[in-house]
């Protein structure tokens, strides 16, 4: 593929994560709150499955809203919103100051559109914040040609103009009244307001004038009572009829222009991305070495002789050939055990995103190097620290047979066996001379971010990092790094911590003020396999930027089992703010028991129960949707035995995690990815250590189900 084409596709990746067409099929135009809809009102439509919609709305009255929405399931959508509202918080002297508000939405499509039937969706808007934008709705939408009609009933913000008694009051009189807004800590999921108070009707129509241009008109019952309460003057609505247009300027990028309430104008930018829309397909990496076929036994029986094992020069020659063939596939041979009919090959994969692809390439390399009498291939991929998980056992004749079979990936998987590599005998295993000790170092840039502090939603430091990793033996790792900030604004945060808990994280801004070189981590680790299905880790040193100490972890994970269980104990002390070798007077012992459960279809649950850094006890639950290409999108919440008041703003810890594999964007195989955690607010309750070598992420793709889920790349 010519470079200009790759460049265009690459640009599209960064800009839109899509393919070249005016509009991406199925991607819906959004409203100013970031969900499919008109201007202020929602529609019942859903985005395509796994769609990640990032949007920014700017209004002429200086209100700004940024949103990230994720289509969790084909009919379930979640959204995180960060809003900036001017002149909102009362100062007490009759004046107001700007507020920054974080909130969550959840939408469920009850009925998909079909035939004459409209789609029907129930939605909760801002149910996880102060409730500034709090609204609930039941909306129906039907498309007829280029026209899309929506209408529904709303509560809260959508229950204003033309409001009437809540019909749900007939079920229970508690629905009649809606509690006031929460301006204290916020962050509690405000279930006591849902579907309460007066209701009102809303409706709208949109017309797809061209394949790029959509025109919109709606009746919005939002009266902006909150923006006018207590003497505020943020908006002065004149008309409930809103108008808008929406234009697809690039694939996956739309711009909306709106006239709102007869007094304001607004701009909405919509950016579409979807883990399922890989911009470069399955990748641009070079075609693999083909399987080397053995001569026909009947025609060349001598070549199949097992006599080579008695030749002392043969095995070293085979190992050299194997090393060369694996190196061509950019795999590192670590150890081998050869006999007349079997070859165990332990190798390190530092290139391929999936172990399945690495195993597939190793199998083909093995066919080029092993004598014909070797029929059984035992392939053992090692992880980043050199420990083994499952060994994949293949018949060489199956590798030869299924290479180009139409269902070759499924057939080689069905014909393979897996055993825990710990159960394989050590006798006869020859480790390559250059495998250990090994030293790796890198000098490159680093970035550090702070998100959603009360004054700035995004702060960034950029600098240089020198890192090194020394491995004297399998599983033993000494690693560390030195960083020097070059530019950034994370040190501009100047709000002192008001936490009533031990300040285990709210002093983070003091670490960000360091201008000189600092040590983000410097640790000694021993990662080992104590028994079949068990993995262990011992770590000591400067474990992360803010804590040093000792850490121990044990993980049980059986090949093929969806459940894995881990336990972790850490004894740490808070580091000095200069992030050199000194410590402060704050000690903590944390301990957790963690359950990991793979639900299938890419959904993973993780439940941590234990004691957190501030001494609080509780649990963290995280639900992650994962894709075989390496994308991960998750949401977590932590609730411990500190009260909302003790916790402070946000009430409890929660956040969103996102990992985008670089290979998905560039089409070139690399295990590197960009990982982000969006934490609406960083407080001391529910805080954990940020350890680098936790076991489950390290070992999970060395065994099923991850290993088998990714098997489609075996022949890639």
């Amino acid at each position, binding site marked *: 593929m010519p470079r200009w084409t790759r460049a265009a596709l690459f640009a599209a990746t960064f800009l839109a994560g899509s393919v070249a067409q005016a509009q991406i099929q199925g991607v819906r135009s959004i409203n100013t709150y970031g969900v499919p809809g008109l201007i202020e009102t929602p529609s019942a439509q859903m985005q395509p499955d796994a769609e990640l919609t990032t949007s920014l709305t700017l209004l002429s009255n200086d209100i700004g809203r940024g949103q990230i929405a994720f289509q969790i399931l084909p009919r379930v959508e979640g959204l995180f919103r960060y809003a900036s509202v001017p002149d909102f918080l009362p100062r007490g002297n009759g004046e107001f100051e700007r507020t920054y508000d974080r909130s969550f939405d959840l939408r469920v499509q009850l009925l998909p559109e079909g035939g004459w039937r409209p789609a029907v969706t129930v939605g909760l808007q801002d149910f996880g914040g102060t409730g500034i934008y709090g609204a609930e709705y039941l909306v129906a939408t039907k498309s007829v040609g280029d026209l899309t009609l929506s209408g529904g009933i709303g509560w809260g913000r959508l229950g204003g103009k033309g409001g009437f008694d809540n019909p749900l009051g007939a079920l229970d009189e508690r629905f009649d009244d809606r509690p006031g807004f929460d301006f204290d800590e916020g962050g509690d999921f405000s279930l006591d307001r849902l579907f309460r108070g007066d209701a009102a009707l809303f409706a709208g129509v949109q017309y797809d004038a061209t394949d790029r241009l959509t025109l919109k008109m709606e009746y919005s019952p939002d009266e902006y009572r909150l923006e006018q309460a207590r003497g505020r003057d943020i908006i002065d609505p004149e008309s409930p009829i809103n108008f808008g247009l929406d234009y697809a300027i690039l694939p996956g990028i739309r711009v909306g222009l709106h006239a709102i309430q007869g007094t304001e104008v607004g701009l909405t930018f919509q950016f579409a991305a979807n883990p399922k829309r890989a911009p470069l397909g399955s990748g641009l990496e*070079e075609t693999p070495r083909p399987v080397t076929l053995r001569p026909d036994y009947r025609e060349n029986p001598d070549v199949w002789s097992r006599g080579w094992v008695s030749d002392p020069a043969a095995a070293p020659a085979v190992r050299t050939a194997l090393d060369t063939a694996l190196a061509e596939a950019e795999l590192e041979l670590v150890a081998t055990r050869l006999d007349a009919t079997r070859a165990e090959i332990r190798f390190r994969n530092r290139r391929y995103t999936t172990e399945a692809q690495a195993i597939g390439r190793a199998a083909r390399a093995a066919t080029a190097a092993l004598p014909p009498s070797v029929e059984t291939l035992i392939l053992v991929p090692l992880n980043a620290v050199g420990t083994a998980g499952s060994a994949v056992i293949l018949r060489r004749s199956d590798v030869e047979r299924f290479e180009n079979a139409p269902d070759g990936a499924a057939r080689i998987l069905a014909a393979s066996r897996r055993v825990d590599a710990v159960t394989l005998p050590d006798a006869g295993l020859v480790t390559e001379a250059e495998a250990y000790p090994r030293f790796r170092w890198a000098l490159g840039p680093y970035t550090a971010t702070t998100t959603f502090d009360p004054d700035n939603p995004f702060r960034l430091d950029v600098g*240089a990092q020198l890192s090194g990793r020394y491995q004297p033996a399998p599983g033993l790792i000494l690693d560390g790094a030195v960083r020097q900030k070059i530019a950034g604004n994370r040190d501009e945060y100047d709000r002192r911590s008001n936490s009533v808990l031990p300040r285990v994280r709210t002093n983070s801004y003091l670490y960000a003020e360091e201008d000189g070189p600092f040590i983000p981590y410097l640790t000694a680790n021993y990662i080992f396999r104590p028994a079949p299905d068990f993995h262990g880790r011992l770590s000591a040193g400067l474990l992360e930027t803010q804590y040093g100490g000792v850490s121990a972890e044990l993980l049980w994970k059986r090949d093929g089992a969806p459940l894995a269980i881990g336990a972790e104990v850490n004894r740490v002390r808070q580091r000095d703010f200069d992030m050199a070798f000194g410590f402060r007077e704050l000690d903590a012992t944390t301990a957790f028991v963690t359950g990991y459960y793979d639900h299938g279809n890419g959904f993973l649950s993780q439940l941590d129960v234990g004691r957190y850094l501030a001494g609080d006890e509780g649990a963290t639950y995280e639900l992650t949707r994962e894709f075989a290409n390496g994308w991960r999108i998750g949401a977590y919440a932590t609730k411990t035995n500190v009260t909302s008041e003790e916790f402070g703003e946000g009430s409890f810890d929660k956040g969103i995690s996102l990992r985008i594999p*670089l290979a998905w964007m560039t089409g070139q195989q690399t295990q590197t990815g960009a990982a982000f955690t969006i934490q609406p607010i960083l407080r001391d309750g529910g805080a954990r250590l940020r350890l680098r070598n936790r076991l489950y992420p390290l070992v999970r793709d060395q065994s099923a189900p991850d290993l088998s889920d990714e098997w489609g790349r075996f022949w890639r």
Partner: protein
Amino acid sequence: MGAVLAMTRFWRRAGLAAALTLALAGCGNDIRESPLRLATAAVADLVRPDPPSVDARTQLTPELIASAPVSVLLVIQQTEDIGFTLVANSANLGVIEWRNTAGQSILRRDGIVAGTRGFGFDRMTTDADGLIRALRAGGADGVVRVHRVIDGAGVIEARQYLCNVRLVGTETLSIYGRDYDTRTFTESCDGPGGRFTNRYWIQPGGTIRRSVERITPELGDFEFVRLND
């Protein structure tokens, strides 16, 4: 004193600039540590001027083809209007791998595309046994063709097409000075990604001398011409 401070500031800034330059350039024997550096390198690679690409069609001559010591396949990627050549590299159970120097390959069974590698939206495998039987029989309706691709999420997706295979006539192909008598077939398929029509020019012995085949909806049609043998 002020001069000393100014010098200190200068050297500090110069040092930081040098550190930034070094960091972005990057070095070491472990490149996995920095996604930022990898992304920077990827962007740099893309903005670098493209070397002039040579279309194989402008280079091929009857003499060159006659002197080729190996089997050569001309491929024209129709959406890009680019021609390049591949040579037969290996064979396994009837599937021949044709490869170019850029690391891309086309797999063909009985002259029909069985898979591609290195083009991005590749087709991993093809089940076209029905097509092969239909071509031998002079045509057939309701022929099943199955493509397997790695979908955007990274898992194998099987796409099944129903095709009608028709003998539409005869044609004498003239390929770089050599003429080949062929029967021409169309294969009209319907399935995921829409409809497409493949075309085959088949010599009396069964050799597919030329074909135009849909690879995947994203890659579009590739034209294949057997230049020798």
